[in-house]
């Protein structure tokens, strides 16, 4: 056991002034000295590209790494809906405080007030910055920016670029990054995957990477390292994350001493296309905006095999409208997802595998006309039809919840620094701003806030204290050891010579995690998972088959290391879920629900961040608690009835 103290470094003073005061109190680096510092940025999604570009603009030497072939491919690109900002352009009563309040409440009172308030504050600057970069947000005829309401928010604060907001924001950050590359201020290393974080005397001094095109393993040293490597939703195997999304960077940092927080807070998105068969590799998200005009229902009777148009009104159960009359089909994500699970578990699911619910547009079509409905959702309908061969204008869509976003991640303080000095985590990789549930259109906001407006200040504060120190040379024994360990791991995987592919084990692991640590969890299941996952991992380590060599491209070798990390993470998710004897946001413990089946929080005992410390292979992690203090909003039971 170590003596980790979780110091969140939240500034003093009234909530509204904390970030401003903190910015003033931070140490500055003289412009002439900035170029003496090297910052390593790992990952080029919204947070990574934004941070790398901004740090380079400030004058730091930036080295930027991505395992993709181009910094434009990170999964931030797949976000459809939009980005929130408290601009109040619509004069509908929005404000920084309201965005802060909505986010805290939406997160089921499990996030830090100060972080969330800062997020709401800088949300305004993000829109200004993105427009200046040329992000083609939707406009009204007068040339002003258009907004829409999203994800059940009662104000219109979501900015969007068709159904491709994530893509456009990422391209904006990517372009800013490429400009810095052309100016020689960023050294960009594509096809380069982080495989270890290197520490010396307790401080992060660099990373070890493998070039996925050539197989070259080498070290990089820097004064600070920023992990902007996304979330771990692929622990479920079937998720809406990209195929290559993984937890490896965050996990290897965890194993080097960074605490991992709130692993059990995973968001299950209600509107995804249900899996069609065993061979499916991933699930596809359909934008939540569909719930604005679609009605969700299942047949009232079990084993009702009639086609949907032959099921009369009286035999349909519009269960969201029935249970939540005021929010109806627009109930928050966690609530809508669980309600779908309940009806499917009852055996009233629809589709060939009985694993979905209907999202029906026929009522909207008769009310608004085919043209209007198609104008609003045409591109989503086309996408649905490409995948399922069914036209939602004629047949109701089938949807089912799927893992989508992970609120948990590396524990960071107010400065986004992990418990390892010099090691930062930004974007989805950290745990900080969404509490136990993320609101729609807030992920893009957080990634960009961390990258453009938070880390560039706080990293400078840290670097100011290192003036005069040069980076640890990559010939130092700490780097040599880490490289040897990476090479040794590759050699070990290649020499197992089992019978099954890494993909096979990932799928099996995903089934366990989804079954026991998915939308609803209970003690028995979690305990079962905690014994079954290690057993499966043992088989995996004996029987996995990785062909080829460590030279050149070897996608199985890349995959096997990621799966190994998912095994350890899956265990931690279950352990965290087991520890948290309450239901909140995306974490639903069956034992802790109200009489009518809603999540029951336990603020007395569990109003804390659960951060876990790695204790070595085969030993359970140690829990550290950071108490959550609510000075401005009073935790209350969320109600969407």
């Amino acid at each position, binding site marked *: 056991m170590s003596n980790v103290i979780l110091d969140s470094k939240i500034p003093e003073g009234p909530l509204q002034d904390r970030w401003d005061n903190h910015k003033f109190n931070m140490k500055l680096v003289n412009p002439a000295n900035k170029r003496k510092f090297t910052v390593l940025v790992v990952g080029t999604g919204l947070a990574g590209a934004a941070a790398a570009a*901004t740090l380079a603009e400030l004058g730091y030497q930036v080295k930027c790494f991505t395992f*993709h*072939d*181009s910094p*434009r*491919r*990170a*999964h931030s*690109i797949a976000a459809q809906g939009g980005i929130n900002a408290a601009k109040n*352009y619509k004069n509908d009563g929005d404000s920084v405080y309201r965005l802060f309040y909505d986010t805290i409440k939406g997160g089921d009172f499990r996030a830090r007030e100060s972080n969330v308030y800062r997020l709401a504050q800088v949300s305004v600057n993000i*829109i*200004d*910055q*993105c*427009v*200046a970069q*040329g992000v*083609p*947000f*939707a*406009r009204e005829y*007068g*040339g*002003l*920016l258009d907004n829409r309401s999203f994800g059940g928010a009662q104000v219109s604060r979501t900015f969007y*670029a*068709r159904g*491709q907001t*994530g893509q*456009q924001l990422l391209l904006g950050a*990517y*372009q800013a990054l*490429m*400009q810095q590359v*052309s100016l020689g201020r960023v050294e*960009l290393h*594509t096809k380069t995957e982080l495989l270890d974080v290197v520490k010396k005397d307790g401080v992060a001094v660099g990373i070890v990477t493998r070039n996925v*095109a050539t197989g070259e393993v080498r070290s990089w040293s820097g004064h600070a390292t920023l992990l902007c490597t996304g979330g771990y939703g692929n622990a479920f195997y079937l998720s*809406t994350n990209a*195929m*290559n999304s993984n937890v490896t960077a965050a996990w290897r940092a965890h194993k080097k001493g960074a605490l991992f927080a709130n692993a059990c807070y995973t968001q299950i998105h209600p509107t995804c296309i249900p899996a069609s*068969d065993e*061979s*499916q*590799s*991933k699930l596809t*998200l359909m934008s939540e905006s569909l719930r604005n005009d679609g009605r969700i229902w299942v047949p009232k009777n079990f084993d009702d095999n009639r086609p949907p148009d032959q099921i009369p009104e009286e035999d349909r159960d519009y269960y969201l409208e029935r249970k939540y009359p005021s929010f109806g089909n627009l109930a928050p994500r966690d609530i809508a997802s669980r309600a779908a699970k309940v009806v499917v578990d009852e055996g009233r699911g629809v589709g060939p595998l009985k694993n979905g619910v209907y999202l029906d547009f026929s009522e909207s079509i008769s009310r608004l006309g085919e043209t209007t409905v198609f104008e609003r959702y045409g591109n989503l309908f086309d*996408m649905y039809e*490409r995948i399922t*061969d069914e036209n939602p204008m004629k047949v109701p869509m089938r949807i089912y919840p799927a893992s989508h976003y992970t609120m948990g991640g590396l524990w960071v303080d107010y400065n986004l620094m992990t418990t390892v000095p010099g090691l930062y985590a930004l974007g989805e990789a950290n745990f900080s701003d969404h509490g136990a549930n993320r609101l729609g259109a807030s992920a893009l906001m957080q990634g960009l806030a961390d990258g*453009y407006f938070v880390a560039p200040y706080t990293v400078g504060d840290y670097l100011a204290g290192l003036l005069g120190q040069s980076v640890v040379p990559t010939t130092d024994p700490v780097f040599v050891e880490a490289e040897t360990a990476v090479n040794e791991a590759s050699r070990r995987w290649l020499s197992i010579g089992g*019978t099954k*592919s890494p993909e*096979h084990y990932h799928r099996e692991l995903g089934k366990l995690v989804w079954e026991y640590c998915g939308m609803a969890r209970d003690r028995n299941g979690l305990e079962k998972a905690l014994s079954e996952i290690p057993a499966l991992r043992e088989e995996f380590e004996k029987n996995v*088959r990785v*062909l080829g060599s460590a030279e*050149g*491209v070897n*996608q*199985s070798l890349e995959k096997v290391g990621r799966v190994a990390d998912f095994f350890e993470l899956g265990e931690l998710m279950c352990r965290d879920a087991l520890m948290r004897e309450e239901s909140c946001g995306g974490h639903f413990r069956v034992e802790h629900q109200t009489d009518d089946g809603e999540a029951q929080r336990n603020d007395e005992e569990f109003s804390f961040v659960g951060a876990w410390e790695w204790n070595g292979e085969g030993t359970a992690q140690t829990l550290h608690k950071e108490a959550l203090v609510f000075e401005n909003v009073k935790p209350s039971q969320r109600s969407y009835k």
Partner: protein
Amino acid sequence: MQLTLKVWRQDNPNDPGRFETYQATDVKDEMSFLEMLDAVNENLIEAGREPIVFDSDCREGICGTCGLMINGQAHGPQKGTTTCQLHMRKFHDGETVTIEPWRAAAFPVVKDLMVDRSAFDAIIQSGGFISADTGAPRDANEILVPKPAADTAMDAAACIGCGACVAACPNGAGQLFTSAKLAHLNLLPQGQAERFKRTEDMVETMELFFGSCTNYGECQEACPKEIPIDFIAMMNRDYLKSKLANRRLSGQKH
């Protein structure tokens, strides 16, 4: 459904490469093309043979990582669809499917079906941005953008950088990619200050790697985002303007 696959295999960039034939058995209509390849790969691994290397990531048609030449068509037979969104119901039982990597001098093969598209990044790097350092820009609503301009810019900005345009072009030309980024930025008021410098820089960088346009229009047919070649016309015009007049003093003039 059962398919015969003729797949290009190439161990490294210098290997001459060859076609190998595989049987894909038990292919279902609901599978995507890449899931079908995943299944083939899993069988290959279990049989002790190295799996086929191909690129893919988001599998929802937006990241632009995947891209295969399927029976001579970039991203396969379905219009406006990336390889990952192409489903097997577009094929029929017993069909022979030929799968090749993108072919262009600018896109060297890395391994099997994976190519190196860094030339695209080089083009963006040379000018595909609006210089706006993070800081305190004007309020977003102070820049008025007419809705048609914003919409057309968005049409162009929809490019996912997959390289299908280059792959489908018999000249290996990168004009659709380059012109889409130019149109996105050159149509917006924010992009006017650097408009002609950007056009010069991006076009001339493009020409270091890619061929010329013969107005065949194959690229717009292959484009999964259906970006029209009208943007190439716009690029041609802006490029001439950038050369013939000192437009840098008057970026605002069209």
